[in-house]
């Protein structure tokens, strides 16, 4: 395959809190290829937002800090050089709640134009014109009038469009979308996703999509990374991850999701809750909730191992070990 546009290796982030150090992200690695969409899925608190925010240099330091790892993007390591020269220009970002993510006392047009004034040295007037056409590109009706309005005069969906316009102003190579549709109505969600896809087709950017909505993943992503307790536990193409789950957690997720093919199936919740990241477990993070846990899972952390040499499918589970029992092994493809 071609060299990835963004290559993250062994990233780890911790936070100092009143109760002690939280290991929010422990050893995360992934590749993002040009023009592709990588979805990072996982439940709340699994570290998916922290991962991308640390790439953008948005982790407040202190209390947070990146303790190890690297992130190669355009011949530089974002971890060591910082993201100041990259963000806004080569990497744009949109957030979960568009209602609070825009400055309430600044006109929408000015907020979109600001990026251009700062990074491309546009004059105020040029930037305003560009902002209007960006708003038009994100399908905001009457963009010229809307540009003069304030965020409180916009609906949530319109605000998310404005956010996208703002993030794409400098035509970045990567768009990071941190739960972009979670706060929106279902119909609006679809429109926003469609907009992102069409814009991706237009200018060939890559997207990192953070979400906990598997339907969104199925619709948008090329590659998927499943995160649990600060680690990526499984990664691969959408087909691999959805149709050949290689990690019990992913399997649990699939079983907890309604399906068209088995409409009568009873949904099975995953019992328990994620481990306390104040003191990460010594073994596998999922061990305590895993119905297939083995003695080793409690004492030794599993490592990422390829499932299929031919594809990018990898998982972090002892069940793939050669010594693991093959009968009743839910993740062994053949048995």
């Amino acid at each position, binding site marked *: 395959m071609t060299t990835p546009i963004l290559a993250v290796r062994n990233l780890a982030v911790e936070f100092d809190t009143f109760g002690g150090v939280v290991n929010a992200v422990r050893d995360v690695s992934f590749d993002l290829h040009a023009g592709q969409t990588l979805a990072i899925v996982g439940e709340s608190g699994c570290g998916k937002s922290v991962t991308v925010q640390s790439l*953008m240099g948005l982790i407040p330091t202190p209390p947070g800090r990146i303790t190890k790892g690297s992130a190669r993007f355009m011949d530089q390591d974002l971890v060591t050089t910082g993201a100041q*020269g990259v963000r806004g220009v080569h990497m744009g970002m949109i*957030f979960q709640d568009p209602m609070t993510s825009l400055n*309430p*006392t600044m006109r929408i047009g000015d907020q979109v134009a600001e990026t251009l004034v700062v990074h491309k040295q546009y004059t105020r007037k040029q930037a305003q014109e560009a902002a209007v056409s960006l708003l038009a590109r994100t399908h905001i009706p009457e963009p010229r009038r809307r540009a003069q309005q304030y965020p409180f*005069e916009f609906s949530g969906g319109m605000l998310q469009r404005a956010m996208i316009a703002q993030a794409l102003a400098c035509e970045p190579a990567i768009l990071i979308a941190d739960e972009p549709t979670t706060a929106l109505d279902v119909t609006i969600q679809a429109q926003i996703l469609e907009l992102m896809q069409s814009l991706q087709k237009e200018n060939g950017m890559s997207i990192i999509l953070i979400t906990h909505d598997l339907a969104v993943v199925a619709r948008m992503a090329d590659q998927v990374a499943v995160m649990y307790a600060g680690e990526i536990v499984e990664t691969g193409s959408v087909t691999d991850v959805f149709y050949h789950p290689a990690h019990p957690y992913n399997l649990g997720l699939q079983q907890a999701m309604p399906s068209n093919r088995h409409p009568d199936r009873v949904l099975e919740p995953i019992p328990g809750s994620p481990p306390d990241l104040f003191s990460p477990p010594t073994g596998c993070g999922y061990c305590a909730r895993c119905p297939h846990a083995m003695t080793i899972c409690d004492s030794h952390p599993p490592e990422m191992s390829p499932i299929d040499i031919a594809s990018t499918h990898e998982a972090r589970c002892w069940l793939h070990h050669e010594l693991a029992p093959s009968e009743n092994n839910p993740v062994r493809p053949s048995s």
Partner: protein
Amino acid sequence: MIRYTAKRILSGIVTIWFITTATFLAMHAVPGDPLMNDKAVSEEIRRNLEARYGLDKPLSKQYVIFISNMLKGDFGISFTQQNRRVNDIIREHFPVSAILGILAVVIAALGGMLWGALTALYRNRLPDITIMFLVILGISVPGFVFAATGQLALVHLNAMVGTTVLPVAGWGTFTHMLMPALVLGLGTMALLTRLMRTSMIDVMGEDYIRTAHAKGLSAQRIFLRHQLRNAILPVVTVLGPQIAAITTGGFVVEYVFAIPGLGRYFVQAVQQLDYTVIMGTTVFYGAFLVLMVILVDILYGLIDPRVRLST
């Protein structure tokens, strides 16, 4: 914005009516006849006053007379100063108080925002800790102590330098105003600093600041264009009540620094139980403060588009 302003003005007028009525009732709750308590009132003034306020008439009639006088802007005649009109007293002494007050409000507001922003920027570091310690002191020390200490400091400063750097008391030039305005503004400045700090820290945690970082803006630009304006909003809302605090605080400062303002006059009137002056100045101050609150509300509307543009 027009509807917003009109609504403020309307409620202001009703408030002024309420203040006037409360003043009237309070003064008529004084046991006995206020005119009888002071034997110094001459027969002539007494007759004059009785006719003027209709003191022989029933309370409701007196109220009507009182209100109509107030509506005409006629506050009556001083008890203790023969035939001096309260209006003249206000006209003569209020400008002094107003200048002092405005200067104090400006010092307090600018200082408060500046220190507050500074403490937020240097959060939990030495400048923050130092300023916040001073702020706690500023909030806990009564205004008259500032006034007295300020004067004491001037006395020692002048003695040390050997000439009059700043005059210790009196009124006239800008140098006279500096220390009184400063000590008058200190308490409010402390309060605003604290508020500004909290507000700045709150804004720092807002999502749109994270967005601004994600847009790759410099720290300065984020501070100036995004943080400051949003942080000032809550500070502006308390400016109205704080102007009231500074106005009444002026009584003490004028008294200590021997400044011929209306506040000192009011304190004097209170000590001499000069009822008409007390009533007149109370209503006048009340109306003035209501006006200030309306102005602050309008100012707030101008800063916050959510208020300005909503109907």
